[in-house]
């Protein structure tokens, strides 16, 4: 049988039983679209997170108190040290030849009050250096003053969201608000930059590190951001930092250094796995579609018993009959998959236009995988009924059911 004849013979069959055809197309299309959608979203999430973390910059190190292993798994984001990292440590670190900037960080939720409005706001205690390292810019006012780290000053910067919560549309610059038990004057408003490192800068207050030590009643740093001097290697900076901290902490290595690469690598692995597993879950719906195809093909074989007998009498071999039924199933799966790919991409495009900051993209392996699973499953599940049709003895097939015509 020529392929063109085979195609037109199958198309005739499919259009005649349009409802049945429609249902199988729908099942296959939903399966394929689900794979594309879920992997597209998973891949989008991965890129989103990676982009966020890339903001940290290639030349930045984060130091946490306490020694943690950073290989094999997500590095610790919170460290509990045996010995605090003090402000003196931070100052000493900044004097290292391989380090250009060092910014301490203390973070905590504080009760913030302004004109009777009471909010719990994430409050960061740091220095002016923090703005350089994190590349934060100001919408209004000025940054933290360049004062010795140990000096507490009653000034704060506020994120736009926190500002809207506390002040509404009123002027915030120059106003006094209360953080915990202390009063602070607003000297600047931070530019909104969206989520970064899991923290929304727009919803935060930034105060001098010494003030934060008083409010939260802590001595040790939560983190220290270190920017490596241009020209110095990451490796060199690392060993210098470790050596210095070891010397300062009585010979004990009780800090952990995290690089962006380690962080990104860990997230990348996890998110890739996530994408793969949601894709696999979606692929199950394709297997369900395959079982549907098998049932439909079985019904088709039993309904067309007389036709099979006739075709054999007219000179079709078992091979031809099997090909006929297999190609019917494959044609269905192919059309369904194409519809699924079309609608999957359309939905992703729609989602992207509604939420432009979220990058969506279907990995090539998911596209090819969905297509080949759809076709493979159709071939696999149609094989059994098609072989059954091929084995039908022509005599019994012809007499088993009297033709309808």
């Amino acid at each position: 049988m020529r392929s063109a004849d085979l195609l037109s013979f199958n198309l005739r069959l499919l259009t005649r039983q349009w409802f049945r055809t429609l249902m199988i197309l729908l099942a296959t299309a939903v399966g394929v679209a689900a794979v594309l959608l879920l992997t597209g979203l998973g891949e989008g999430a991965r890129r989103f997170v990676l982009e966020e973390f890339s903001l940290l910059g290639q030349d930045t190190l984060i130091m946490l108190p306490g020694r943690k292993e950073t290989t094999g798994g997500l590095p610790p984001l919170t460290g509990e040290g045996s010995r605090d990292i003090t402000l003196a440590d931070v100052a000493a670190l900044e004097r290292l030849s391989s380090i250009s900037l060092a910014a301490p960080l203390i973070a905590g939720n504080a009760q913030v009050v302004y004109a009777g409005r009471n909010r719990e706001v994430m409050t960061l205690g740091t220095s002016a250096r923090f703005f350089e390292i994190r590349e934060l810019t100001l919408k209004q006012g000025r940054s933290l003053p360049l004062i010795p780290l140990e000096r507490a000053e009653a000034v704060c910067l506020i994120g736009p969201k926190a500002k809207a919560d506390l002040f509404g549309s009123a002027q915030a610059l120059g106003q006094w608000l209360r953080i915990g038990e202390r009063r602070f004057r607003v000297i600047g408003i931070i530019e909104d930059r969206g989520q970064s490192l899991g923290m929304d800068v727009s919803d935060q207050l930034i105060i001098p590190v010494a003030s934060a030590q008083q409010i939260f009643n802590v001595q040790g740093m939560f983190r220290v951001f270190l920017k490596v001097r241009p020209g110095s290697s990451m490796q060199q900076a690392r060993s210098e930092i470790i050596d210095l901290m070891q010397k300062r902490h009585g010979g004990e290595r009780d800090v952990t250094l995290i690089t962006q690469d380690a962080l990104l690598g860990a997230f990348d692995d996890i998110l890739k796995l996530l994408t793969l597993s949601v894709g696999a879950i979606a692929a199950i719906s394709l297997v369900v579609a395959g079982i549907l195809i098998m049932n439909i093909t079985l019904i088709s074989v039993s309904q067309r018993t007389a036709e099979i007998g006739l075709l054999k009498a007219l000179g079709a071999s078992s091979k031809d009959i099997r090909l006929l039924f297999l190609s019917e199933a494959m044609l269905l799966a192919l059309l369904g998959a194409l519809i699924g790919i079309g609608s999957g991409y359309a939905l992703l495009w729609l989602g992207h236009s509604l939420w432009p900051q979220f990058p969506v993209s279907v990995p090539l392996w998911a596209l090819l995988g969905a297509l080949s699973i759809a076709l493979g499953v159709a071939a696999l599940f149609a094989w059994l009924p098609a072989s059954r049709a091929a084995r039908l003895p022509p005599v019994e097939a012809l007499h088993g059911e009297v033709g309808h015509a």
Partner: protein
Amino acid sequence: MIRLEQLCKTYHLGGESVHALDHMDLAIAAGDYLSVIGPSGSGKSTLLNMLGLLDTPDSGEYWLEEQQVSLLNEEQRAALRNQRIGFVFQAYHLIDRLNARENIELPLVLNGTPPKLRRPLIDELLQRLGLEKHALHLPHQLSGGQRQRVAIARAVIRKPALLLADEPTGNLDSHSSNEVIELLEELNGEGITLLVVTHDPKIGERAHRRLWMQDGRLTGENLDAESREGRTGRKDRKGSDDAQR
């Protein structure tokens, strides 16, 4: 053209063995017109399926055009069915989603004839059988007689050597019945070997050679004088047909 030697076929139905063909010997000459008459269950349908290569014997030999076809495999038998044998069934067995033209086309489609070569063959046959007007009609739009003519057209489109008709008039009124049988006889007149299986004595009587079957055996044979002459030497089919009319 056809020689059956000690052909046997046994069916097992619920623990009971039915000898559908019991050591059958039969020789059929090219261009013959035979009828097989017998009650249902006499094995005549089995004989037809055996001759049409739709069924395989348990034992014995079947020679078709000097070829022992009982040795062929399924693929080879399928090719031979397509090329040398035409079937006409009581229930027509037209595919109801295909129009008359496409139904007739099927054997050519199955053997992979290019569409360009198919068209003139079908056009010629449609015209010959007076079906031009119905070429694009679906089977359910045709009368019984027309459907059977479409089925006959499908059976002879490959110009087979052997035409097997299983109760070809079983579902038809007497007028259509006559038309169909005359068409079959006309084709036989052109040299196709025709074998009609029937339980209708009136149809069976028209054949030149009549076989009676019961319990898988031939129980009687009746030969027309003209036909016997024809088989023994002088191939004067036209004359014998005229004599019959």
